[in-house]
């Protein structure tokens, strides 16, 4: 029995197999409509996350399975002080697989160590969110048809953005990948990430100017610059617009650029870009569901 807590637990081959399954689901949805008949997914969401929870639930329903769970800790026994370990043991008696979102880092790992069924980490605080990375990878695969020889720009909050760090760790396995980190100085990519890229001879550059780097990107991965990350309001006001993607900033962009964003968006991508064929962020949501379907099949060992 296997769980998925951190994207690094999957080998490159396993990720490619999941992508292959997701492709097959997209092409032959009827073939998968009853694969999980009689199985139950428990969605244990100790903090609200509409998108991720609905994605898991839709994934299980499309596999013919059923779903039970809760969407905030107030409606769970955690409100009475139950430990994560006890919740995991209890829920294992009701469900065949668990998807857990928790505000505390490491909570899904504790659940996996105690559950009698596979546990999928659906986000633990600012720590890990492996199924978002799987969604990102399927999006890149569908849009670009390859992972090799891509120039990937990451823009916004690169210091705290967990989706950025785990996508980097997944993409760095492929040859010829180049990273461009675009962020204000306050939110630069951490030194340990850069040091490990240098150690492995992976090419990267850093800039504070999104427009000047735009023409080099095959993929632009946007994230939100949050007000609370700044030390002072003035600095935030000065910088916030530099990292908002507008049609003007896309003038030098490649015609085959793919614009991605883990969502939810606040204002960092102008709504007028949504109709641009290069905008992929809503497709990313759809691909997320297919990757979660592939992952549920893998962890439940359904052929």
């Amino acid at each position, binding site marked *: 029995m296997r769980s998925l807590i951190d994207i690094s637990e999957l080998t490159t081959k396993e990720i490619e197999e999941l992508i292959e399954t997701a492709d097959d689901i997209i092409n032959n949805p009827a073939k998968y409509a009853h694969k999980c008949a009689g199985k139950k997914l428990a969605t244990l969401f100790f903090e609200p996350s509409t998108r991720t929870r609905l994605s898991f639930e839709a994934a299980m329903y499309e596999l013919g399975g059923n779903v039970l769970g809760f969407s905030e800790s107030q409606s769970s026994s955690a409100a009475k002080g139950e430990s994560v370990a006890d919740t995991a043991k209890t829920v294992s008696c009701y469900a065949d697989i668990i998807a857990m979102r*928790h505000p*505390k*880092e*490491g909570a899904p790992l*504790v659940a996996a160590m105690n559950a009698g069924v596979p546990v999928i980490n659906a986000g633990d605080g600012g720590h890990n969110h492996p199924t978002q990375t799987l969604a990102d990878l399927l999006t890149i695969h569908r849009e670009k048809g390859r992972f090799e020889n891509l120039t990937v720009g990451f823009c916004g909050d690169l210091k705290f953005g967990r989706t950025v760090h785990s996508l980097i760790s997944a993409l760095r396995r492929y040859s010829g990948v180049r990273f461009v980190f675009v962020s204000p100085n306050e939110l630069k990519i951490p030194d340990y990430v850069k040091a490990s890229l240098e150690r492995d001879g992976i090419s990267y550059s850093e800039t504070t100017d999104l427009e000047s780097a735009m023409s080099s990107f095959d993929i632009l991965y946007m994230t939100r610059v949050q007000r609370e990350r700044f030390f002072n309001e003035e600095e935030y006001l000065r910088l916030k617009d530099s990292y908002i993607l507008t049609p003007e900033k896309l003038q030098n962009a490649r015609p085959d650029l793919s614009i991605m964003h883990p969502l939810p968006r606040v204002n960092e991508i102008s709504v007028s870009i949504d109709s641009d064929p290069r905008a992929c962020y809503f497709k990313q949501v759809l691909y997320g569901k297919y990757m979660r379907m592939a992952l549920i099949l893998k962890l439940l060992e359904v052929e």
Partner: protein
Amino acid sequence: MTVDEIKNGIVLDHITAGKGMKIYSLLGLDRLDCSVALIRNVPSRKMGKKDIIKIDADIEVNTDIIGYIDPDITVNIIKDGKNVEKKSIELPQKLTNVLFCKNPRCISATEQELPHVFTLADRENRIYRCLYCETKAK
């Protein structure tokens, strides 16, 4: 300075000078009834000076703690006055309840009964990270 030979027990040798007291307290040697000698700043050909701990009882010591504090220590097992086993210590892969995670967002901060577990993330630089939240041990 001379300290009596021990008959059955353990000698922790080649402790980096100055670390003896820390090992003594982390191993809880103050709670033992038997004779325990902590000898500091002993002249050493190899190390210049070193600390030594002699425990005059056949007890189990937690080699994980020793390995974390000072992996160059040698553990000598003494039986009937003879050195019957000489063990070198390695950096342990896992430490349980030796280091404590200080990250307030870690699950170990709210769930009191969870053991604090750190794993060796980088042997070369001796970096340990919390099993749950991966915060680096300070």
